[in-house]
């Protein structure tokens, strides 16, 4: 069990505490300028915090880490290739004119933990292949080079260097005999023994090899600039069958029971080819504006993800019918999706990462279920958020933010697994002051205002009833039965009003003794709990004795 504590510090801090031991398990520290945490909500998938800054921010936390798009460093250009294991992302940016690099980064915040850097004469990294404890990097170098890198320390342990006339390594694939296959810009597909990185065989072709895929059994498939896919036997490295599309170069391929080939065409096309006969079985054709497949990612089956030149990632339902099941489209200023990566499989990971054609490179985290970008939500009203209410298990995945505005505003944001965006809002009338408290009852939301009202909103964010008082409603609590709402008032002494929800009329109230105030409410186990200030210690002794006496009775 965990409780999260928002601290009243600068910068903001959120501490994760394990209960019942009450030991600290982790903490998030805000950026400079983030002040306090005035609102903190429970959330089904994430926990959100709201630093007290203007404009306010709602930050999705994953193990107390912020997930958002990431820009690479100076000299680290377009993301030409990326891959991941269960623990880290590996990113190969364009480094021209400097030697290639591969960055090993944390999948949550993309903080670099290690890197491999090529030597003199090593061009940029064009292709990556992750297999077991090693990463293979194909270089933009003549003669061609494939470097074998040990994942644990990102050091080079061996390399294959081609012969005279062997051009850059555009693509890599793996077969578990084991072999590594390198597709060359000069037309050959080279079979390399990974243990010592010695070439053992090759298929000699004429057209540029842009992409490779392996069925991990009998064949390696080569996608050519001419729009043809070659089926090459692993034993003998001989051409068996081919699919002659001619509709555009084969920019990307992956294998999942069949061969999927992404075309350099408009509209974008992904073709499904029979693994044995190379006959086309199905295809997905993009809509208007969908152009050129730049990358394909097999993230578990289904689906596969298709990165487009038109700043879009499309999820396809394979192997069944190749229908589109979702898409993410970047901002107008975004660029083509050159690479895609996922940590482990989609089932294990929170995000897929799209590498964009910016310089410096940009990595965008996308929720595989909602296909929306995971990002910090900044409230456009530039107002401090005073309170926050999150979705409940089994309920709709919504969150509500109450703003420090006149009239009052409550924003409903959708927090569907990795993304945050404003979905709807309620704006109070004249005289409705800032939102001090929020509570949720099924699909209804109760809003406590600084100006003394408790407003009942329905699931369309429309007001359906209200109770009107005169003092600030600083806290709300609802029992499981949902028949009443308790409203804590910021009076001196403090008061708690019991309001019947059906009629939004006052049933009764508790009034504190002199000096007692109400700051917070909680409902648990049939009792209402009031947090605040009580009288000093001498009076407490009497009260506690009274309470114990009552319980004994």
């Amino acid at each position, binding site marked *: *069990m*965990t*409780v*999260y*504590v*928002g*601290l*009243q*510090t600068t910068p903001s*801090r959120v*501490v994760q*505490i394990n*209960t*019942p*031991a*009450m*030991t*600290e398990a982790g903490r998030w520290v805000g950026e400079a300028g983030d002040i306090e*945490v*005035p609102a*903190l909500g*429970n959330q*089904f998938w994430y926990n959100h915090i709201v630093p007290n800054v203007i404009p306010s921010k709602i930050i999705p936390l994953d193990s107390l880490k912020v997930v958002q798009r990431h820009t690479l460093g100076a000299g680290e250009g377009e993301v030409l290739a990326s891959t991941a294991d269960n623990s880290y992302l590996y990113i190969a940016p364009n480094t021209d004119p400097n030697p290639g690099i591969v960055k090993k980064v944390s999948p949550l915040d993309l903080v670099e933990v290690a890197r491999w850097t090529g030597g003199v004469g090593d061009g940029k990294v064009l292709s990556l292949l992750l297999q077991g404890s090693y990463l293979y990097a194909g270089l933009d170098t003549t003669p061609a080079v494939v470097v074998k890198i040990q994942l644990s320390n990102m050091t080079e342990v061996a390399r294959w260097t081609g012969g005279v006339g062997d051009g850059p390594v555009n693509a890599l694939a793996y077969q578990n005999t084991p072999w590594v296959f390198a597709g060359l810009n000069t037309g050959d597909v080279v079979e390399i023994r990974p243990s010592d990185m010695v070439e053992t065989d090759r298929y000699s072709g004429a057209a540029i090899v842009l992409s490779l895929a392996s069925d991990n059994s009998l064949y390696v498939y080569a996608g050519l600039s001419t729009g043809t896919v070659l089926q090459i036997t692993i034993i003998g490295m001989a051409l068996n069958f081919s699919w002659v599309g001619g509709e555009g170069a084969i920019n990307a391929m992956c294998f999942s029971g069949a061969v999927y080939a992404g075309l350099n065409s408009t509209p974008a096309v992904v073709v499904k080819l029979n693994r044995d006969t190379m006959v086309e079985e199905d295809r997905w054709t993009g809509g208007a504006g969908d152009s050129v497949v730049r990358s394909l990612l097999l993230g578990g089956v289904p689906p596969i993800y298709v990165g487009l030149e038109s700043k879009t990632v499309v999820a396809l339902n394979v192997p069944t019918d190749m229908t589109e099941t979702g898409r993410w489209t970047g901002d107008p200023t975004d660029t083509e999706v050159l690479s895609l990566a996922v940590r482990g499989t989609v089932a294990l990971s929170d995000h897929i990462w799209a590498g964009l054609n910016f310089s410096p490179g940009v990595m965008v985290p996308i929720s595989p279920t909602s296909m929306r970008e995971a990002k910090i939500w900044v409230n456009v009203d530039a107002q401090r958020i005073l309170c926050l209410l999150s979705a*409940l*298990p089994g309920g709709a995945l919504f969150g509500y933010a109450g703003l420090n505005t006149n009239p009052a505003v409550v924003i409903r944001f959708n927090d569907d697994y990795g993304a945050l965006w404003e979905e709807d809002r309620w704006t109070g009338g004249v005289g409705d002051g800032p939102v001090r408290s929020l509570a949720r009852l099924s699909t209804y939301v109760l809003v406590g205002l600084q100006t003394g009202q408790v407003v009942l909103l329905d699931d369309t964010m429309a007001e359906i009833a209200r109770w009107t008082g005169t003092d600030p409603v600083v806290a709300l*609590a609802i*029992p499981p039965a949902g028949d009443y709402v*308790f409203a804590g008032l910021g009076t001196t002494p403090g008061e*708690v009003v*019991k309001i019947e929800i059906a009629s939004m009329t006052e049933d*009764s*109230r*508790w009034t*504190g003794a002199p*000096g*007692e*105030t109400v*700051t*917070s409410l*909680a*409902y*648990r186990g049939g*009792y*209402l*709990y*009031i*947090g*605040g*200030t*009580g*009288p*000093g*210690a001498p009076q*407490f002794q009497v*009260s*506690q004795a009274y*309470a*114990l006496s*009552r*319980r004994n009775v």
Partner: protein
Amino acid sequence: MAGQCVIQIDPDSMTEVARWIGDPGQVLSLNGRDGLFAGLNTPDVVNINTGSMEETNRWTGAAGEVPQTLARAIGG
């Protein structure tokens, strides 16, 4: 001087049943999901036994780390 206080209320009669009171100061935040936790105006979060209204244990942060808000992790 006013003290940090959590009051247990019978919701039917809206009368006090028992209370926990700490040091001089104020309770800033409460959370009642899977336990009762009170964030104080000192760097403390107190775990309160709702049966006895006595403190079970507490987390104490560094100086100045006042627990302004509390949230209980739910679901995943």
